[in-house]
Structure formats: C-alpha cells, structure tokens
C-alpha cells in the first residue's frame, strides 16, 4: 500500500498531495532528495525514505533545513537533479542560503518544496505566508491546487529550474499536502545520482560582480514571467466581475460558483511569482471589478491593484487574512458581493451558535516519557522558569503540566534561557528535544559555555523526531535510507562543547531521576541533563510486532485515598475519575505499562494487573 507512489504509468491511484510531489520528482529524473521533517510537509520525506533504495536515488533526513537545502544545492552543483522539502518555518531556517543560490548558477534542476499551514493545524509559532519569500529571493514559485497538480507542477518546476538555471519553489499548503485524490501517473525517469563538480565562476560571486549578477537575475525573471503568461487556466464566464485565484481556494471558487449559479470568468494562476502581468491585463480588459480569492495575506490583490489602475480590485475586504479559506468562506464572500442569501448555511450557523461541544485537547500519549520528565523536573526544582521549544513536549503547554513558558522556534529556548539567566535571578531550565538539540540547540549551548550563563539544559531524548512521524535523527543510529549510522551521543557532545556538569537519567526511574536533577541543578554555570526514555508509541509498536505483552496497571480501591494526583496533576489519559462513585481507575485498553504512575502515587495504590 505504501508503494502506490511507484505504480505503473497511466494508472489512476489515490495519492496524498505530498506523495504526488514525490512521484513528480521521480518522473523528472531526480537523483538526490533531502529534508527535515515538519508537518504538513513530512510525507514528502517519509515517502522518499521508503522508496529511495528501491528506485536507486539518494535520500537523507538532514540535521536541519539549512543543511538539507545546502546539500540539495551541492547535488545540483554536481549536475544531479535534487529536491529539498520542509515546512514554512524550515524555509526561515534555510533562508540564509536560499538567496545566494538564486544568484548563482545551477548545473541541474533544483526544487524547494515548502509547505505552509494556513489555519495553524500543526504550527504553534505563527501563520506564515511564504509567498513573500519568492519575491524577496527572486525565485519562481509554483502553486498546485490538488494532488494531480502536485505531481504535474513538480515536473514543471524541474523543467523551469533547469531551463533558467534557478532553484524553483513548489509552494504547498496543508489542504494540498494532506489532500488525497486520484492522480494519473506518468513515466518514471531514471536520473543521474552521480555527477562531477566543475570549478567555475558561477558559484562564487563577490562585489562588484555581484551587482551585475543581480541585474541579470532580474532579466531572468522577466523571461520567466514571459513563460508564465501561458501558465494559467481560464474558466470563461459572463459579467463585469472576474475572479483571480490560485492554489487550494481554486476548488472552493469553482464549486461555490456552481452552487450559487453564478457564471463568472475565473483566472487561475499556476505561479504566485512572478505573476503573468500581460495575461492578467488581457483578462481584466472587459471587466470592471476583479475579486482576488487567495489565502492569508493579500499578496496577489496588492500586486493587481498596482497593475490595474482604474479597475476595482477587491479581496480581503470580503475574506479573512487569518485562518485557512474553506468552501463556505468563499461561498459566503461571493454571496455577499452579489447580495445573495445562502439559507442552508444560515440555518447551520444559527444552530451552531447554541451547540455545546465536549472539549478535547491533544495530549501527551499514555506512557509518554515527556510526562515523566516534566514530573521529575517539577518535583526536583519546584517553580522554575520552563523554557519551551518545538516537539511533542510542546503539549506540556496544557494543564496539568503547564511547563512550556515560551514557544518561539527550533532551538530558540537555548538563547532565550541564556538571555534570561543574564538578566534575572530566577532558576532557568531550557527544555528541548533530541532532534531539536541536533537541529539548532548546539550553537546556543556553546554560547552558554562561552558567555557563562547559569542555565540547566534538559534534553528530553525519546530517540526520534517523534511529533512529525518518528523520523530518525543523528542520535537514532540509522539514516533515512535505513542504513546503520553512527549514533551521536548528546552527553558527549555537551562535554565536548565545554559543559562541565553533564548527567544522563533514565526517566522511567522517578526517584533516581529526581535525585540526579537536584544534584546537577545545584552546580554553578551551564549544565546539561539528558533525560532518556524511548517514545512509548514506538516502543509499543515494536512490542506488538514482536508479540510481547506489556504490563497493564490498575488502582487498588482499598489503598487509593482519592487524592486525585494521578488524574489531576500527573494527567495520564489512561487514568480516569468516576466522580459519581468517587473511584479512580485505569482503562486497560489505553495503559501502555510505563509504570510511572505507580511511582508517583503517594499511597502505593497502583500495581500491575495480574
């Protein structure tokens, strides 16, 4: 089932948008793929990881997005077609190296697949609109609207990149990356995986030549724009108002027009940068009004306002700037522009106002090692400042833990903790995960040593990049192609960085962990604690596969004094409180046998079920 992405040409198969990107790359003859996982982009990387060996291409999970991008750049320097993928925040990390790549030549096509997350379904930091990057970086950006286009546009992106010797963005959004649809497949092309690096001036530019290259880059963009004039889809219609749209909202526009029985001309752009100005001017010639339907910021709307003086260009006056667009958002906006009523939506809105939902936040899994770590840190240190970062432990933001005092970006907790330690007398604990430590936690650690801050760094090591789907990282011991690799040791790295006080704890042993945390936190200067415990989801998968039964715990009602600590302070989702009977109990279907609750219970009431 996982290899549907390798089905024969001509066949129609259901693919996720992200899988379709991979197929598009395979049909373009790529030889090299790299990535750092991040929702909603992760399945691009995970699919490559599954098939790379089979199809004879190279794939890696890199330590972070900047390295992933540079590695794909290196492959393109050698004449090997490459693709790199990450989520929108990943582009922020990689951005320092993206811009120069546009200035420099490439010897083979290079595609940067970047996934935005309108609606912040899986992004706690911001609701970024990556289309601005294309403008700043002077790089073309293609925007597929569905899985079929994910595949087709990926191929187009490779063609464009190689034709104009410039990396090309393939911009995805959650509703494109995670949409499934039937896709018609083309032929897989065997690409080069080995090339040769020929020394030449195109890879090293210094001022004043840089200015010449900059000028040439703009000429190149003009040529790309000329090519993009035909990269549109026109849906004819009547009337004085025309719609310009792109990406996922295209689907909502076309269905809404049908539902509202409106016959309007629609121009769908395949590129969000550069926009084909000539085509748009021709489209607008006989229209009075243009309605730009786009997600997030009014990027295209503002460009059209400049491009079409004398025409009324509307958009964000009728559509939200925050949150993703949905079919009904677009339909309502169109109905409002034309003064139409939508009775079924009105009924639904009215009823929804009075509907009481049952709250359910995502939570750390039963048996999650992070729950143990949070418990041990709090038990040892009381009320410290808890630096937060990006990973599953972000869920510690909710009660009962409430131990993520900030969430900024990958590895940011290191710098913020350092700054706080220099400017407050508070006890600062910088919490980050293993993958995050490798990704961006090390420069901050070195800075703590160099500039001597008094911070306890707690690395919650669950052996994987867990939140995005358990991808391996430099500490896991194997690569994205399932090959054995060196297992980097976080404690040894910390020592090599000059941290004098380093300790490793086994999070499943609560008493010992608390003792170690107390001991190390009393030392002056920067100190680092590796809190080791395998992700329980992975552990349970392995146990099930091997047919090993894990213990299930239960609460002895005789010994239980109804203090509520297990449910209200520890907060394992397998433990429940029947308030009517005032009884605490463990749901055996959800107990994953970590035994931490039995160590946390002050009355020894939690035992293995016989």
């Amino acid at each position: 089932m996982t290899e549907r992405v390798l089905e024969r040409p001509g066949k129609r198969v259901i693919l996720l948008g992200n899988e379709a990107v991979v197929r598009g790359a395979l049909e373009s003859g790529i030889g090299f793929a790299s990535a750092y996982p991040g929702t909603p982009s992760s399945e691009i990387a995970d699919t490559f990881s599954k098939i790379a060996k089979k199809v004879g291409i190279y794939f890696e999970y890199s330590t972070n997005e900047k390295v992933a991008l540079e590695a794909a750049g290196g492959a393109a320097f050698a004449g090997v077609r490459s693709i790199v993928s990450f989520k929108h925040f990943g582009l922020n990390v990689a951005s320092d190296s993206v811009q120069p790549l546009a200035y420099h030549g490439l010897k083979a096509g290079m595609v940067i697949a970047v996934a935005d997350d309108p609606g912040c379904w899986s992004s706690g930091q911001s609701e970024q609109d990556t289309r601005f990057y294309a403008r700043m970086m002077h790089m073309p950006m293609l925007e597929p609207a569905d899985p079929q286009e994910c595949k087709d546009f990926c191929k187009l992106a490779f063609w464009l990149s190689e034709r104009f010797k410039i990396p090309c963005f393939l911009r995805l959004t959650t509703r494109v990356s995670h949409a499934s649809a039937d896709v018609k497949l083309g032929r897989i092309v065997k690409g080069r995986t080995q090339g040769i690096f020929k020394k030449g001036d195109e890879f090293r530019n210094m001022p004043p030549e840089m200015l010449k290259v900059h000028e040439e880059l703009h000429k190149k963009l003009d040529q790309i724009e000329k090519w993009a004039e035909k990269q549109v889809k026109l849906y004819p219609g009547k009337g004085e108002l025309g719609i310009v749209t792109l990406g996922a909202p295209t689907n909502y526009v076309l269905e809404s027009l049908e539902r509202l029985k409106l016959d309007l001309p629609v121009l769908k752009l395949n590129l969000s940068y550069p926009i084909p100005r000539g085509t748009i001017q021709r489209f607008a010639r006989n229209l009075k009004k243009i309605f730009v339907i786009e997600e997030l910021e009014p990027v295209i709307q503002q460009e059209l306002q400049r491009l079409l003086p004398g025409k009324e260009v509307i958009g964000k006056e009728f559509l939200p700037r925050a949150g993703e667009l949905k079919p009904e958002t677009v339909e309502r906006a169109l109905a409002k522009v034309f003064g139409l009523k939508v009775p079924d939506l009105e009924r639904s809105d009215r009823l929804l106002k009075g509907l009481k939902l049952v709250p359910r936040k995502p939570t750390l899994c039963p048996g999650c090692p992070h729950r143990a770590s949070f418990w041990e840190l709090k038990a040892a240190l009381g009320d410290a400042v808890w630096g937060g970062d990006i990973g599953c432990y972000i869920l510690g933001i909710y009660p009962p833990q409430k131990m993520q005092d900030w969430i900024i970006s990958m590895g940011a907790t290191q710098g913020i903790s350092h700054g706080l330690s220099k400017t407050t007398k508070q006890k600062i604990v910088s919490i980050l995960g293993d993958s995050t430590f490798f990704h961006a936690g090390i420069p901050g650690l070195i800075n703590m040593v160099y500039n001597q801050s008094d911070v306890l760094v707690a690395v919650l090591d669950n052996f994987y990049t867990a939140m995005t789907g358990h991808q391996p990282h430099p500490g896991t011991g194997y690569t994205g192609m399932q090959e054995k690799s060196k297992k980097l040791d976080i404690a040894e790295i910390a020592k090599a960085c000059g941290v004098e006080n380093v300790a490793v704890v086994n999070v499943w042993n609560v008493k010992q962990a608390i003792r170690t945390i107390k001991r190390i936190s009393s030392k002056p200067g920067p100190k680092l604690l590796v809190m080791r415990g395998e992700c329980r989801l992975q552990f349970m998968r392995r146990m099930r596969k091997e047919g090993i039964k894990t213990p299930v715990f239960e609460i002895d009602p005789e010994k239980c004094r109804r203090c509520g600590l297990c449910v209200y302070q520890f907060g394992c989702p397998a433990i429940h409180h029947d308030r009517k009977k005032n009884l605490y109990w463990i749901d055996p279907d959800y107990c994953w046998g970590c035994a931490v609750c039995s160590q946390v219970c002050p009355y020894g009431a939690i035992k293995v079920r016989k």
Partner: protein
Amino acid sequence: MKEFNIILCGVGGQGVLTLAAIIARAALNHGFEVRAAELHGLSQRFGSIETHLRFGKGIRSPLVRQASAHLVLALEPSEALRACRYANPETSFLLDKKPIISNTLYQLKQLYPPLDEILKRIKRFSEKIYLTDATQKAKAMASPVMANVYLLGKACQLGLLPLEKSWLKEAIKEVVPERHLKENLLVFNAGQL
C-alpha cells in the same frame, strides 16, 4: 449521484485514517473521483480527528462544505458533535457508543455528558441517528482498534453508503496489512449483523 460527502471523526489513534482509506479505495475502484482531507501531526496525539471524504463526478474540493455531509461516521460519540458543523436535516449519523474521556475534561472540572444529552444536541441538526457498539464488539472479537471496520460494516448494513458490500471487502483486502486482514474481515462481517 453527483457527490457523496462523509465526515469521519474520532480520537487520534482510533484508525480514522484507515477507515477513510478503505472507503476511498472502494469508491475509486468503481469509477468515482475521490477527494479527501486529512490532518496529521500535532492533533493526532489523542486529540480530535476529523477526516473529510468525498466521491462522485466532477468534485474538486477535498473539504466538505458546511451543512453538506451525507454521512457522519463517529468512532466516539462526543466527537460527532463537532461534525454537526457539516450536518443538514438529511445527514445520517452513525455513532459508536463508547466514550473516550479526555484528561482535558478533568483539568476543566467538567463532566462528560450522558449519551442521551449528546443525541439531543445532534437531533437539532438531524434526526437520522444510528447507534452501535463498535468498540465493544470489536474488542470482544479481536481488538478495540478494529472498531473502524465494524462501524463500516454497520454503515453498509444500514444502507448508509452508496457502495456495495463486496466493493468494501475488496478494498479492505487492498488497504489493511496482510497480518491483520483475517481479523479485520471478520469484524467487518460482524458489523453486518
């Protein structure tokens, strides 16, 4: 039939995505165009899961429009409340009765509403509600994780899906890994009773 819209909901880990994949495959194999919208990542960790599945002719959006679902398949009763956003008076709801009480409720000092109360709230949107014991039945036969195929069998038996039983069976064979296939088919068949 121009389009058929399903909302599949439940709690992360209940097999909502697999259920969607089975129905999608059955629809594709029999000539329908298919669109689905899934959620991955953060929300999967014991949070609310909502998957949209549409099939028919000339469909484009992977998202079901508000008030436009034909069928809601809920693996957890209170999650069906969230799906009311997609309901109209013609929408059918098929619910598993077993609640999964979230720790969020304990933290908020709220009680999980009784099933009757949940049904009362849904009834204001649509009266077409069907109940089943999918988790309990699946657990007795094999594993509670197979509640998804039990629910599918039940939907089939009640005639809530415009897909034939044999199509779904064939799709289960294509989607479910070999080593779990026998049990899945057994549980699916039990849902038909």
